[in-house]
Structures are given as structure tokens and as C-alpha cells.
């Protein structure tokens, strides 16, 4: 085994840029080598041929294609195009941030779950930026909208269960806590918003942070990865509440520094913001369940850091 391993790690892998080799490549080839002996017998028996292939079996270095963080570039391109297309589908204009499109917003977390955090953030950022370039009026403050969207995808993709990235939630939670303190802090201390209004008005945000920081995060991720569609739907619902809530927080804290809406607006928004998010959850769940069921049925090769 050792010699085989060395042969594989030999010339071929060194000459090729690192991100062309999927991380699991070596493991895959090893597995194939190991099963080759048993496999040959299977081939001869199971394929219905009188004898197996007569050609010499070759060593196949599985290169895959160009990828970002284990997600093929082609996947990122199409999902970015989807985000861009959905961003042009206006659904409603909502008070809080001057321009809001629930359909695409329900999709940001899904992009993170399908591609993984980094690739998901890239897809969402590029797709939303394109949406902004082509129709600048769909976002009142373009940079903020793009930033908030990609944070949502990133946070969603970071909902890993175990593995090397299981501690990514810590710096992210820190970021979100800082954001909410700035947000509510500015409201209460500088703009004279009452404490009740600030707390109730940011219910979505602190509930999202709690769900993210607590083990509920991994629970939802496990549900999303489950084989049962019912559990997947549940995981998507709560996961979207959480990820969309974090998107909302990231966007709103910056918007608030810009727009500084008064207490009356805070009070008005108390029922509206969670209702909006409920909308996003429904949409995210419906779309997510359909998409995940479909991806599994197609047998699409899962990106390395996919959650589903």
C-alpha cells in the first residue's frame, strides 16, 4: 500500500496546482486500488460479458475541475446566475430597508448549504452584485445588500457538524454580537429609542444569534442532511430563520448607521420584521426542500463542504 501511495503522490499531484486536486482524491484512488482486485472479479461476473475488459487497467488520477473550496466553478457560476435572476424578480417593497425581495433572500442560505461557506458566499456576492449592476434600484444601498447577503450564505454554510470547521461559529458569533450591540446600542444610547422598543424590535436578530451560537445550529444542519424530507424541511425552516435573521442583522446595522430611524418606526416594525422573516422561511423551506430532493435524485456530485 505504501508504495502505491507514493506513486500516487508522486509527479502528478505535485505539478498540478493544489486547488485542482480535490482533497479526497488520494483517498479515492486508494480505495479504487484496493477494490480493484475484488472489482475485477465482479466485473467479469456482473456485467454479463463472457470475459472482462481485455485492455489493461490504467491508473486514473481523478483531477476534477477548477474549484473554489471544493465546489466546482461551474456550480458557483450557475448558482450566482440564479441569485442574479431571482434578484430581478421583485416581490414586494418592504419598509425596513427600502427594497426587499423575499424570493432571492430565501435562497441565500440555500446557496450556502449547497456550496459550502466560502463558495456559497462567492456565488451570492457575485450574483447579487450583478443584480445591483444591472438594476441598481433593487438595492437602496448596494454594498450593504451584497455584504449582508454573502454573510448569510457564509453563516449558513458554516453550520457544519464536526470536522475541521466546527469552530468557525465562534468568530462569526462574535461578529454578530458586536453587530447587535452596535445596533441596539446606537438606538438606545444615541437616538433615544426606548429599551423595550430596541429589544422587541431586534427580536429576530437576537433569536437568530442564539440559534446560531447554541447547539441548535448543528441540530438544524443534521436535519438538513437527513434522508427524510420532513426533517430536511424542518431544518430548512429554522435554518432559514436563523441565517436570514443574521443577514438582516448584518444589513440593518449598517443601514441604521445611515438612516437612523426614530423610535416610532422601531415600534411599527416590531410585528413586521418577524413576519417578513417568516415569509422568507416559508419560501426558503419550499425552495430548499424541492432543490435538495432534486439534487439528490440527479445524483449530482456534492461539493466538498455541502451541508445537504
Amino acid at each position, binding site marked *: 500500500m505504501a508504495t502505491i501511495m507514493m506513486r500516487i503522490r508522486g509527479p502528478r499531484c505535485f505539478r498540478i496546482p493544489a486547488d485542482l486536486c480535490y482533497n479526497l482524491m488520494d483517498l479515492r484512488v486508494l480505495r479504487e486500488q484496493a477494490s480493484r482486485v475484488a472489482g475485477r472479479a465482479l466485473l467479469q461476473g456482473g456485467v454479463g460479458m463472457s470475459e472482462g*475488459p481485455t485492455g489493461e487497467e*490504467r491508473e486514473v488520477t481523478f*483531477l476534477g475541475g477548477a474549484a473554489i473550496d471544493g465546489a466546482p466553478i461551474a456550480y458557483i457560476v450557475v448558482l450566482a446566475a440564479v441569485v442574479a435572476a431571482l434578484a430581478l424578480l421583485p416581490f414586494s417593497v418592504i419598509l425596513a430597508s427600502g427594497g426587499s425581495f423575499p424570493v432571492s433572500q430565501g435562497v441565500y442560505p440555500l446557496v450556502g448549504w449547497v456550496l459550502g461557506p466560502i463558495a456559497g458566499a462567492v456565488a451570492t456576492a457575485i450574483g447579487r452584485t450583478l443584480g445591483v449592476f444591472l438594476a441598481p434600484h433593487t438595492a437602496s444601498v448596494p454594498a450593504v445588500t451584497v455584504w449582508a447577503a454573502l454573510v448569510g450564505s457564509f453563516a449558513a454554510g458554516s453550520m457544519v457538524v464536526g470536522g475541521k470547521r466546527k469552530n468557525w461559529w465562534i468568530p462569526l458569533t462574535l461578529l454578530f454580537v458586536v453587530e447587535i450591540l452596535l445596533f441596539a446600542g446606537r438606538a438606545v444610547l444615541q437616538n433615544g429609542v426606548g429599551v423595550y422598543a430596541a429589544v422587541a424590535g431586534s427580536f429576530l436578530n437576537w433569536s437568530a444569534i442564539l440559534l446560531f451560537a447554541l447547539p441548535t445550529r448543528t441540530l438544524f444542519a443534521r436535519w438538513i442532511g437527513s434522508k427524510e424530507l420532513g426533517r430536511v424541511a424542518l431544518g430548512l425552516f429554522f435554518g432559514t430563520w436563523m441565517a436570514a435573521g443574521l443577514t438582516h442583522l448584518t444589513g440593518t446595522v449598517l443601514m441604521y448607521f445611515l438612516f437612523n430611524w426614530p423610535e416610532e418606526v422601531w415600534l411599527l416594525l416590531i410585528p413586521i420584521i418577524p413576519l417578513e422573516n417568516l415569509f422568507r422561511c416559508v419560501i426558503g423551506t419550499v425552495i430548499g426542500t424541492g432543490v435538495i430532493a432534486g439534487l439528490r*435524485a440527479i445524483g449530482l456530485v456534492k461539493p466538498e463542504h455541502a451541508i445537504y
Partner: protein
Amino acid sequence: MSEPIAVLDRVSYMYPRSRDLVLRDITLQVRRGEFLGLIGPTGAGKTTLCLTLNGVVPQFYGGRFFGHVTVAGLDTLEHPISTLAQHVGAVFQDPETQLIATSVENEIAFALENIRVPRDEIRKRISRALTAVRLEGTEARHPHELSGGQKQRLAIAAALAMQPDLLVLDEPTSQLDPIGTQEVFATVRELNRELGMSIVMASHAAEEMAEYADRIALLSSGGLVTVGTPDEIYSQVDLLEEHHLRPPQVASTFHSIWRGKADAARVPVRMEPALQELEALSSECSLRAPEMLAKPVVHGGTPLLSVRDLGYVYPDGTEALNGVSLDVHEGEYVLIIGQNGAGKTTLVKHFLSLLLPTEGAVAIGGMDSRELVVSDLAKRIGYIAQNPDSQIFSNTVGEEVSFALTNLGYSAEVVRARTQESLTAMGLLEARNRHPLSLAKGDRARIVIAAVLAMQPDTVIFDEPTTGQDFRGARYILDISRELHAAGKTVIVITHHLYLMPEYADRVIVMGKGTILLDAPIREAYQRVDLLRSTFLTPPQAVLLARHLGQIVGQQLPLLTPAEVASCLECPPPEGG
């Protein structure tokens, strides 16, 4: 011919996570400068074979690979795909997904930039490539401004710019209209004959392949059945039918004339030799009254669909229809043909009330289309669009089939009963709990048909059902249309595969540039060869053979199919046959 450009030596291949061999012990050589055609039914492994030539199989997919593939002296497993790409240009089936840049020149430059060709050299190659495919002057155009044929020519140009030794084309004309198909074949032939480019092309277009290919390789179930010249291969009609392939019509005709007993020499596969052979036969054989397919009588009464002076202009100003008038009666089987952009789908959308006329009027079942709601109309008129994937919305086949019924408000009882019926009729009962996308592409079309038929519409419209299908798949769908017609439904089919339709359609409407050029019973319509040619449609070879035979014997022979043509010649058995 010098040494071969590509050699496959006992090549077998299995995709990862699969237990079946997609290619089995293929040994084949591609000679330098030749045009090698690859034929075989869907699933035979043609695409996989094409991809072995540039290393994508197996380097990109993984899996298990046996044997050796050498292209331009390079073993495809020992050199990275980027090196192989400089020797093998690849052109794929879908014109849209293979163009990845936002302008024509960027498309051609892309691969060159990847292999670090200097800027001036890129510029030179771009203009050379565009000249070779006759797209000069289009550098700045955006891909969506190009027609299907132009897109594929652009893809060819992009492959050419790499200055490859071998050009591999995987069904490049399957998604194109007749003009596009002609353009692509003309381009490829020119590249082969004038520039000496070696070509490997997988295609179902039997007539064209017989005309242009130097050799044909027949692939079936992953194995190479036989290789030979088109004369050798396409004349073996029984062999082709055994593998669910369609020979050129002239070959079927002569095969029928000789009742399968002639050797290759007397079964021509191209038009010119066929016409000559026909002249020889006219003296050898005696003429009989042909057995023609019965075509039903013209219908009367209130038309089901009535169009008067219809004009339609799209919001962006394109005039799609102009002065169109026609009636469709209950129980007719209408074929609408024409190039892309002729207005066929636009016309049909008016029947569904998806579009409302900007001029003139459309009446459906006696009511003006403006007063009808699309979703209500769906109960009466079913529409099956070309791409099944954009008509599938549910997570299981069963749900998909009952989707429409639930929307239309039928009771649970009715929904259950009709879904069951529809699934059984289309052979999808065992698949009812599977996800639609887990079925093969060809089967997904059946799901859509089942879903539409569950609504039990009286009229069914099939929009390009045969595009992208192999012969077996196309016939399956057309047979369903015939069953529907036999059951009394009105059927409208849009297609440009004229040669498939004589067994099904009664009436033909030829459209061109937004107007109706011809509206006649099929037998009459197919005889209007000049009119068809003026809109770049080719009548089936059998029709041309019949005309020629008619000229020889001085009699009108309005025949449509090889069988009909064969039936009018009574020939003595061939020598040695």
C-alpha cells in the same frame, strides 16, 4: 493517408459509482484527414467515446479506465487535459451552454488565453477562425444575438482557434433547425475537404452523414459493432434497425425494393447514386400502382381553432406574425413546419391564449381568446413544450402527474383515478414515487406527457417533440400522438423532421417569416419541393425519389415514404440474391 491521428486500443470505461461498462473493448483508429462518423442509439456511449479523445474521460470524471487512447502521439492519461485540448477541439450538442463568453471574440479567445497565447497571435487566430466558419465581422456580437446555427459555428471557430489536429463534434446539430444543420454540416465538410482537418462526429442525421463521412463507426451498448464506409454501413438496413437506428431514406427505399435480398452495391445510400440506380431500375422493373397510406377526408363544421388575420408584435418590436389565417377542425392531425423564428411557437401560443393578438382575432371553441383564462383553457388544450426539465415541478412522478389536476380543483377521487390511468398509459406506474429527475432525459418527456394527458384535453399540441431524441425516442412520442389522434383528439405537432411525419399527420402548414406559406394535405404539401426549398426545408428523400421516378415514367407519383416508393416497383430478384 499517413499514420492515424487517434488510436483507441481495447478501451473500456466505467464511470465512478457505477457498475456498468459504458465502453467495452473499443479498438478504433481515426485516420489523418478523414471524416469519421459515429452513430448509435442514445446510451450507446458516443458522448463518452468523444470525451475519451480529449482526456476528459477519465481525467475529469475518475472512474475505471482500461486500454489506451493516443491522440497526436499523446497518451490521454499521461498528459493534462489542457495539453490535450491543444490537439483536440471539442464541440458539444447544446449551443447555449457551450458558449461561455459575452462576445464572439471573447469566446474564441478564451481557450487561447488559458494556454497563454500572446495577444497579437490571439487576434490573428480569431480572424482566421471566424473566416473559416464564415462569421467574419461578428466579433463584438453577444451570443444571444446569434442564431442556433451561428452559435454552433462559433463553437467550432473557438475549437479551431486552438489549431487542433482533430475536431470532435458530439451531435452538434441535434438542437438546430434545418438551416442551422445545413450550415454546420457545410462548415464541417469545408474544414475537412479544404483544410484537411480530421473530424470525428457523432450524429443521428443519417442523410447528411451518408453524404459527407468517409467512414462510419456503429456503436451500440458501449461496443463497436462495425466500421466501414457509408456505402457499406448504411446499406445494412437490417443491422441498423436491429440497433434502433434509422438509415437514410434512399437506403430504406432500395432495401424495401429488393425485399432485403440485395447486397450493398444495389442499395445506394446517397441521393445521386440513388437517382442513377432508379433510372437503371426503371428499365429492369415493372411499375405497379403504389400502395399509399390512407389519409382522412377534409373536416367540416365549426372549427375548433379559428384564426383571422392574426398579427403579433412582441413588446420589443419584433414582428412575429403577420396576416395569418387558418382553421383547425376537431380530429385533425396538423403538422406545422418552418425554420426557427418563422412564428410556429408564437402561433401556437395564441391557441393557448398565452399571447393575445395585436391584430386580428383568435377563436378557441367559438370563443374569442381574449375572454379566456389560460389556466381554464388548459383543461381543453394540452401543450407539451420541447424541454421537459422546465415543465417538471414536483418531487415525485406521481405528484407531477396530479399537479395539474389539483390546480384545476378536481376531487381527490378523480385526481387519484386519473393519475393512475395516466401513469399506466405511459408506463410510469413503477416509477411513481421516484423523483422525476432520477429518470433518464428521454423518460422525463414521458412524465410531462402523462401530466398533460391527465387533464384529458381534447386537443394536444406537441412542440418539437423529436428534437434531441434519437429515432426510437422520437417514434415513441409520435406513436403516442397517433394513439391520441385515433382516439379522436385533435393533434398539432411542430417539428422540422419532415421524414418522420408521413405516417402520422394529415395536414401540413408551412410557415416562414411570420406568415403561412402553404396549408395543404400532407401528400400535396410534400410535393411542393420548390416552396419547401425556398424556406430551406428539405423534403424527405423518398419524396424526391418518387418525383424522379415519376419523371422517368411520365406519371405523377405523389409518394411520401420509402415503403410507398418501393411498393410501386415490381423487381426481379437481384443477381445472386
